[in-house]
C-alpha cells in the first residue's frame, strides 16, 4: 500500500514532481487525466464552445456533410452534430460521475464495515453482494429500468446499483489487508477507538484500490449509459446524448456516416481516458491486484 504513512516518510523528497506523476498513474494516467479535464471543461463550457444550438433544426441541412461551419456535419433533423456532441458530454459525464459517486457513497461504508467487523456480518453481507454479482450487470440495469421506466435519472440509479456490490467488494478486500497490519493492531493496543482507527488507518489505505476501481467503473458507466440510451431505455429525445444520437443515425448509416462516426468517437475517447487513468493508477496504487 503506497499510502501507508511509513512509506510516505521513506519516499524521496527530492522528486516531488515525479511522485505526483506516479500518484496520478504515470505517463498513461497523466494522458487520461488531461483528456478528462478537457472533456469536463467541454461539458461545462458547452454553451460557449458550441457553434450552434444543439436543438436548432435546419431544414436545409438535413443529413448535410461536414463543412467548415459544421465540422461534424448535421443529423436527420439538420441539427449540428458537433454542438450536440459537446452538449452530450454533460449527460454522459454527469451520469458517469453521479452513478460512481452514489455507488461509492453506499458501497464504501458497506465494504469498510464488512471488512473491519468481519465474522458473521461480513459473511452475510458478502453473500448478499455475491447474489447481486451473479446477475449480468447490464441485465440488472435493464430489469430496473423495466420496473421504473426509462430516463436519465433511472439510468444513473440503475448503474449505481450495479456498482455498489463491486465497490463494496473491492473496499472490503483492501480493508482485510489493512486490518491485519501491525500498525492497526498497534493502534488498537494503544486503545485507539474503532472510529479513529477506521478514519486514520483503514480508510486512507482502502481508498487507493477504490479509486482505481472508480475510474474503471467510470469508463463502463459511460458505455452502459450510452448503450441504454441506444436501446431507448436511457435518456429520451430530444436530449443531446451520444447513445441516442447513434440510435437516431442508425437508419442513415451509409448515407450520412458522420452522424454515427463522431458521437461514437466521442464515447470512445472518454472511455479511453478513464481506462488510461485506471490502468495507470492500478500500476502505482494496487500492485497486488485487488482490483481486477
Amino acid at each position, binding site marked *: 500500500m503506497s499510502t501507508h504513512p511509513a512509506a510516505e516518510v521513506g519516499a524521496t523528497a527530492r522528486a516531488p514532481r515525479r511522485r505526483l506523476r506516479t500518484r496520478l498513474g504515470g505517463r498513461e494516467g497523466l494522458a487520461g487525466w488531461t483528456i478528462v479535464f478537457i472533456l469536463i471543461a467541454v461539458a461545462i463550457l458547452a454553451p460557449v464552445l458550441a457553434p450552434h444550438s444543439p436543438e436548432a433544426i435546419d431544414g436545409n441541412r438535413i443529413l448535410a456533410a461536414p463543412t467548415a461551419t459544421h465540422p461534424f456535419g448535421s443529423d436527420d433533423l439538420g441539427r449540428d452534430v458537433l454542438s450536440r456532441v459537446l452538449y452530450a458530454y454533460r449527460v454522459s459525464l454527469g451520469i458517469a460521475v453521479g452513478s460512481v459517486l452514489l455507488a461509492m457513497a453506499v458501497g464504501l461504508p458497506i465494504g469498510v464495515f464488512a471488512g473491519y467487523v468481519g465474522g458473521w456480518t461480513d459473511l452475510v453481507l458478502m453473500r448478499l453482494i455475491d*447474489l447481486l454479482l451473479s*446477475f449480468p*450487470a447490464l441485465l440488472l440495469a*435493464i430489469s430496473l429500468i*423495466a420496473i421504473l421506466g426509462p430516463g436519465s435519472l433511472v439510468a444513473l440509479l440503475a448503474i449505481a446499483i450495479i456498482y455498489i456490490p463491486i465497490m463494496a467488494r473491492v473496499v472490503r478486500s483492501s480493508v482485510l489487508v489493512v486490518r491485519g497490519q501491525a500498525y492497526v493492531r498497534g493502534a488498537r493496543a494503544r486503545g485507539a477507538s474503532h472510529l479513529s482507527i477506521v478514519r486514520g488507518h483503514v480508510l486512507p489505505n482502502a481508498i487507493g484500490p477504490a479509486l482505481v476501481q472508480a475510474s474503471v467503473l467510470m469508463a463502463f458507466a459511460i458505455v452502459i449509459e450510452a448503450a441504454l440510451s441506444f436501446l431507448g431505455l436511457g435518456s429520451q429525445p430530444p436530449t443531446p446524448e451520444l*447513445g441516442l444520437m447513434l440510435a437516431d443515425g442508425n437508419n442513415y448509416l451509409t448515407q450520412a456516416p458522420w452522424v454515427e462516426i463522431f458521437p461514437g468517437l466521442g464515447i470512445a475517447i472518454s472511455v479511453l481516458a478513464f481506462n488510461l487513468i485506471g490502468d495507470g493508477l492500478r500500476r502505482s496504487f494496487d500492485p497486488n491486484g485487488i482490483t481486477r
Partner: protein
Amino acid sequence: MNARLSYALRRLILTAPVLIATSIFVFLLIRLVPGDPVRSMLGIRATPENIATVRSELGLDHPLPQQYWDWIWGVLHGNLGHDFISHEKITSLLKVSLPVTLELTVLAMLLAVGVGVPVGVLVAARTGWTRKVSGGFVIGAISIPDFWLGLMLVLVFTGLLNVLPPSGWVPFTQNPVQNLRYMILPVVTLATGQTAYILRTTRAAMLGTLSEPYIAFLRAKGLRERSIVYVHALRNASGPIITVTGIQFGVLLGGAIVIENLFALPGVGRLIVTAISERNYVVVQAGVLTVACLFIVVNLLTDIVHGLLDPRVEEAVSS
C-alpha cells in the same frame, strides 16, 4: 477423482440459493412496477374483463408467498405463462429466441478465447514492440463501445465493401451458410472487447506462471519449451483465464442484448427490450429469468472446469 466429484457436487449445491434469490427477484419484477402493472401492461386494451382475466392468470389477487409458489411451480414445469399481446405461449417465444442468443454468445466466446488465449500466451514471452502492439489493442478494444464498433463494421463491410448483410437472420436449420453470414458481424462485434480482456488476463497469468520455480525444474528435466508453455504453464495459468472468461460471459450476455437489437437478431435480448417498450412485463420477466439462469449455469460450469484443472481448488473449497 472422488474428491473432484464431491467438489462438483458441493459447487452445485451452492448454486441453489443463488437460483432461489434470482427467481424471487424476477418474480418481484412485475409486482414492483409502480401503479397497476396489469393496467399499464394492457394499455388501451384495459377493459374490465381483460384486466380481470390477466389478474387471475397472474394470480395477483392471492397473497405474495402463494403467488410466488404458484409461479415457480409453473416455471419448474415449463409453464411461463402467456404473452398478453401476441397470445403466444412464452415458452414457444423462448424456443425461437434462446437458440439465437446462445449461438451469438457461444460463437463470440469461442472467437474471443480462440484468439485471446493463444495471442496472450505468445505475447507473454515477448517484450518490445509485440508488447506495445498488444497493449494498444487491449486498451483500444476495451474502450470502444461494442455497439459503435458494430455500426462501424456495418459501415465498412456493408456500406463500403458490400460483402456482408447489415442485419437480419435466418434459422441455422433452414440455411446454415446464410445464417453464419448474418452472424459474422454481430459475433466479431461482441467478441472484440472480450478478446482484449482474455488476452490481457492470459498474458498476466502466463507471465506470473513462467517465473515459478517449477518451470525452471521442468526445463532442468529437459522438456521441450513447447510442452512447458502449452501443457504446464498454460494449465497453471488457466485459473484466472477461466475465471475471467466466466465473468466476461456475463458481460457478453449483457452485450448481446444491445447487439441483437443493433443487428435485428431475434434473440432473448431483443425480446426483452421490445417487451419493455411494450410494457409486456410477463415477457420481460421470462426473458430476464432465462438470461440470468444462463449466466448462473455458465458460472457453475466455469467453477467446475477450474476445479478439474487445478486440484488445489477443491481443497480450498472444502477448508
